[in-house]
């Protein structure tokens, strides 16, 4: 048995602390590894998709310390000590209860192929955490970096505006 001192980082992902050594071995998080790679390949959290891999489509969006973040363009080592929330973390692990956004997307079929949906929901979640009653323009602006090709824009906007509208 040999021992080696290695640097490590700790990410809190969906409420659980995850410790990773940093280095060049296959088991280490490499300094160049993106958060998307760590989430998908090491933690099996595959909801966030790597689509354009250039930060231009929003499919990889997760929430880091309360901010919508493109995980394909964020290094894992930068997230040391931070709180990462992914789509998987929105569902209550015990009761299975969904976040109201997820439930509203089901109720209104606010998706088609579903590939952009994880990023769209996380972008909306990050917006609503700061601004529970956005205007339609604020919502559109928040989602401007999320690429959707099926054309679910109208249904997502209607769904989110419907669920966040303040009761008169």
């Amino acid at each position, binding site marked *: 048995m040999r021992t080696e001192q290695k640097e490590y980082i700790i990410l809190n992902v969906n409420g659980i602390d995850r410790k990773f050594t940093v280095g060049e071995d296959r088991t280490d998080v490499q300094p160049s590894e993106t958060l998307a790679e760590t989430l998908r390949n090491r933690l099996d959290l595959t909801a966030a998709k790597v689509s354009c891999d250039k930060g231009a489509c929003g499919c990889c969006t997760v929430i880091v310390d309360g901010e919508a973040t493109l995980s394909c363009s964020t290094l894992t080592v930068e997230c040391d000590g931070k709180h990462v929330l992914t789509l998987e973390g929105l569902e209550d692990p015990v009761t299975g209860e969904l976040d109201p956004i997820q439930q509203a997307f089901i109720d209104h079929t606010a998706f088609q192929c579903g590939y952009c949906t994880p990023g769209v929901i996380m972008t909306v979640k990050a917006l609503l955490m700061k601004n529970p009653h956005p205007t339609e323009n604020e919502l*559109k602006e928040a989602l401007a970096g999320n690429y959707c090709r099926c054309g679910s824009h109208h249904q997502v906007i209607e769904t989110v505006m419907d669920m966040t509208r303040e009761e008169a």
Partner: protein
Amino acid sequence: MAEHRYLGKNQPRLAARDIVTGRARYAADEKIAGMLWAKVLRSPYAYAKIIDIDTSKAEALPGVKAIITYKNAPHWKAGMIIPHKHLLSDTVYFIGDAVALIAAETEAIADEARDLIKVEYEELDPILSIEDSMKEDAPQLYPEIPGNVADYEPFANQGMALTQEKVGDIEAGFAEADVIHEVTTVLENAQNPLPPESPGIIAEWNGEDYVTVRGSMSSNGLCRMMNSGCMNLPISKMRVIASYVGGSYGSKHFSSNGLIIHYAAALSKATGKPVGLFYDREEHLTCQTTRMNSIGKYKIGMKKDGTITAIQGEWTGEAGAFNGEHYMIIAVGLISQGVLAQSKNVDISTKIVLTNRQTSGAFRGYGYLENAIHISNALYQTLEKIDLDPVEYFRRNRLKVGDEFYHAYMCSGMVKAAGPDALEMINKGAEKFRWDERWKGFGVPTYEDENVVRAVGVGFCGQSDVGEQLANENVNLTFDGGVTVSCVATEFGPGTRDVMRKIAAEALNVDLSMVRVTDSDSMAAPYEWGSTGSRSTYAMGTAVLKACEDAKRQLFERVAQIFHCPPEALETKDGMVSIIGHPEATVPWIAAIGFNGSITGVGNFGGEYNVLVQQVQFIEMELDKKTGKVTVLEQLCSTDCGQIVNPDALKGQLDGYFPGIDMAIREGMIWDKDGRIVNPNMIDYKTRTWNEIPKHENIILESAADGNYVGTKPPYGAFGAGEPSLAPGIPALTLAIYNATGKWFTTYPITPKEILDALREKEGR
């Protein structure tokens, strides 16, 4: 209208919970133990000969498991009609063509190995446009395709005039015309279908020459039919398991250009391991398929009342670096003539040419979008000459029930339209959009001030392949009251599998939660094409409905023996069978099926080509007079789906209209002089963002809810309406831009600079 338990009502779509929780597994989310990673070394030249290739350094890299070049590649060929594109050869045909295939233990090792391969090329003069491919001194790309023009004689010899249309006497027709006008339109956008998920395939070749392919494939049986032969396998030895598909729009049905499948399969065969090949976005944008470029020259002869006395056309499509399903794109596209420009005298000749550019292929609107643009451009300019409102023209010249139209694809002859009559969708759309009030005539804006000019436009399109091809589905009733629909429909966006679930639940009158649809696995369901060509709801739905009726017949025959009544006296609800009107005479399915038993119903459908899916779109747009920028202000889609199955899912399909309008004004691949695509990423390939979405409305009619069709009957009258949403947008915007600028554009995308130039010309500056 019949009252349905599920049809036309919203329930959570099948897979909804998987999709919103991240459980839905797409190709790159699949995990197979022992999987190797594949990469493709690609050509930097549009046309070149490989003089030397040295893989020794790459092979020596620890973790590399196989490298395949033309020297050791299996003798596989793709392409139609005569296969001509070798899996790998010593000649490369476009920038991005495969030179070597690498499989390694990790993605990083595969990447590194790719960089270690040394290749020496001899550059050849490439063909980089449709015109150049037809020049006499043009290089001959493939010996199988002399003159670079695809040969469709083999089809013609079998009585299938797939790529040409001749009816009546064209000269006599033109002689009757009051006006004759000819327009040539050049579509060289090569618009990319650009699903958010790039293609991904995991192939597993076993020792018995049997391959299992998993991943992003949207059309199960079609994919097997078109690709097994390329790998020298019978269809039965290729198993396709579709993952969730992150958008296809045609690009992942892998009809005849599923090179990614062949590459992964060849590496799996070479290594004896499962091999995953996942294209990155640049490969997706440069090496997969685009919309087919084409040049269309159409001459229309018209009477003063809008009757078309003759239409003559030459339509030339660009296959790109090899020829695949393009004959089908052209054949389907010819339907646009019948839908848009009915005439007794028609002569349209077509051609498919090869170039050294990225291969084109299927994209939502399959040929009829392209041809609708060519024909509409000629049509609108002709209508201007007789000053007839295009909406009024559509009202007069629409295909009515019983009208004959030419159907090249599958029929190669005249087909009687079974409906629906488009009059109501035209009228309801025009009324809602206030067309009659807003249309001021050709070349007249609806509003103009010193900063902006606004104008309206309209587009129309249709096709009749919603019932295409044979369909085969099974339905299994289990003794607990459960139902399994065996069907290869894929989860790729439109909610096709959910349509099958609802049709089965409706037909067998069971709770929706008791119906399951098999995965899209060719080993779990009967062979058939799967989800492609708008056929799912009509063709597959009919087979599911028939399978349910067959199962119900067997069930009732057994229960009839228990009650000593005729089977016709029985009905079923929620896993129970009763004598109609006698609820006291009720038994559960298990009484007839037996403990541990099941009943299998079989459903087949032979294909129908007479029901039309049509859509009319109205647009108002605004031009910024200082920048030339087009802003779409308002957009309305009007269609008829026969019977709505899923209201919200169908709305989503129609809401997906914008790649149509953006083909007119924004989207396209851009090539440099060497044939290199210079915008293969999502920053430089411009698409519409959320804050540019216009005001939008849909009108969805249900004319067939009572199923009153001539000689055919879609399931519960439902035949779908999703695919045409892109096609009318381009003619609509072209017309609106004419009304605003006074210039008819015939090349795309129409750029802000061209618009500014047109505005300056109009103002005499």
